[in-house]
C-alpha cells in the first residue's frame, strides 16, 4: 500500500477547491478597477470623477474681474462679508457671457437675513418688518453701502 496516496474523495475535493479559489483569483485580477489602491482602499480615479463636476457658483473673485468698482464700495461697509451671488443669484454663465443676466430667481432679499428672530445673534441688525416700514428697503438703504442713505 502506498503511504502517500490521497483517498479519491479527498483528491476530488482538493481539485474542486483549487478550481474555485483559482477562478476567484482570476476574476479578482480582472474585475478590480485599475486605479484601485492608488491612495488607499478605493479607486484613485474617483477623486478626478468627483472633481469633474462643473461649478455652479462663480465666486466673488470672478465678479471682481469686471465689477471691481462695486466690490470696492462693498468692502468699505457692513455688507463686506456678502457674496455677490447671495443677492444677485448664480452668475457663472453671466461671467462667461455678460449678455446672460445672473439667475435672479436664486437671489434673495433683505428680510431673509434681517427679519427679527430670537435665534439670531444679538449683534446682528434685525427688524420686525411689519413694525418697520411698508415700502421698499432700497428707498432708505443702499444695498452695497447699507449705512448710507440714497
Amino acid at each position, binding site marked *: 500500500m502506498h503511504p502517500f496516496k490521497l483517498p*479519491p474523495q479527498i483528491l*476530488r475535493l482538493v*481539485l474542486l477547491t483549487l*478550481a474555485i479559489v*483559482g*477562478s476567484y483569483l*482570476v*476574476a479578482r485580477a*480582472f*474585475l478590480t*478597477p485599475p486605479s*484601485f489602491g492608488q*491612495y*488607499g*482602499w*478605493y*479607486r484613485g*480615479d*474617483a*477623486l*478626478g*470623477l*468627483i*472633481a*469633474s*463636476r*462643473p*461649478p*455652479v*457658483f462663480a*465666486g*466673488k*473673485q470672478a465678479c471682481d474681474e469686471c465689477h471691481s468698482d462695486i466690490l470696492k464700495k462693498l468692502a468699505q461697509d457692513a*455688507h463686506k*462679508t*456678502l*457674496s455677490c*451671488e*447671495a443677492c444677485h443669484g*448664480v452668475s457663472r454663465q453671466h461671467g462667461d457671457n455678460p449678455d446672460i443676466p445672473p439667475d435672479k430667481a*436664486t437671489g*434673495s432679499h433683505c428680510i*431673509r*437675513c434681517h*427679519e427679527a*428672530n*430670537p*435665534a*439670531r*445673534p444679538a449683534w*446682528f441688525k434685525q427688524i420686525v418688518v411689519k413694525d418697520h416700514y411698508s415700502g421698499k428697503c432700497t428707498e432708505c438703504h443702499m444695498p452695497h453701502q447699507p449705512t448710507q442713505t440714497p
Partner: protein
Amino acid sequence: MKTQFSRRSSLLRLGGAIAGLLTISAVRTAKAVVQKVFVSTSAPKGYDPTKHKWLMCIDDNKCIGCGLCVEACKRENGVPEGPYFRTWIERYIIPKPKPGSDRTRGEALVDSPNGGMHGFPEPPLPKDQIEHAFFVPKLCNLCENPPCVQVCPVGATFRAPDGAVLIDPKYCIGCGFCIQACPYGSRFLNPVTKTAEKCTLCYHRITRGLKPACVEICPAEARIFGDLNNLHADDPLQKFYEKNRVQVLKPYLGTEPRVLYAGLDKEVR
C-alpha cells in the same frame, strides 16, 4: 478509466476557465472604452491631494439662520428635492425652566424645517420664555476616523489624502451601511442615483481654487474654510484658530471630526 474521466473533466474545467477569462477581459475592455467616452474626468490639472489639508470651522456665534448655504449647496451639487441635505441648519430654542421646576433650563426645542433652506418660522414660544436660542449649521464632519468609511463593504467611500471624506458614485452599491453608521445624519441615499451621498466639501470647487458653495455664499462668515498646509498671512482660518477654543460634535464616539465649532451649546449633538 477513472483517471481518464478525471483528466477529461479537468481539461473541460480548464477550457471553461479560459473561455470565461476571455469573455471577462473582452467585457472589461469594452467597459473601459465606454467609460472613457462617457465619463469626462477633466480633473483640474495639477491638483495633488497629498499637498493639501482641508479644514472647515463653524463660528456658531455668527450664524444668522438665513438658509442661503443650504440653498446654495442643493443648487451647486444638484441635490434632489425632499429630505436630502448635504448641509442643513438647526434651530435650538432652550426655554426658561417652568416656574417651580428644579431644573436649570427647559427641555430644548429643536427644528429644521426643510433643512432651514427657506428660513425658520416664528418660534413656538413667546420671547420672554426663551432662555437661549441659536442656529447651528451642520454638514459632514469629515472625521479623521470616519465610521462610514470603516463599514463600507467595497471601498466606495473613503478618506482622501487631503482629508475630504468622499463617495465614489460609480462604485457605491447602495447598501446604506454608511448611512446607518454616520452618527451625524450627514448621509442620505440619493433616490435618483441610488447611491449614498453627502457633503464633498464641494470637491469640484476646492480643487479649482474656489471656496465651497456654502462658504462662498454665507453672508455672516459663520463658515471658515481653508487649507492648513497652505495658510497665508491673514487667513481667516488662522485668525479663527487663534481666537477661539473649539469643540466637535459627539466627541465621545472617537470619530475626531475635522469640522470644528466655536460657541456650541451642550444641547447640540
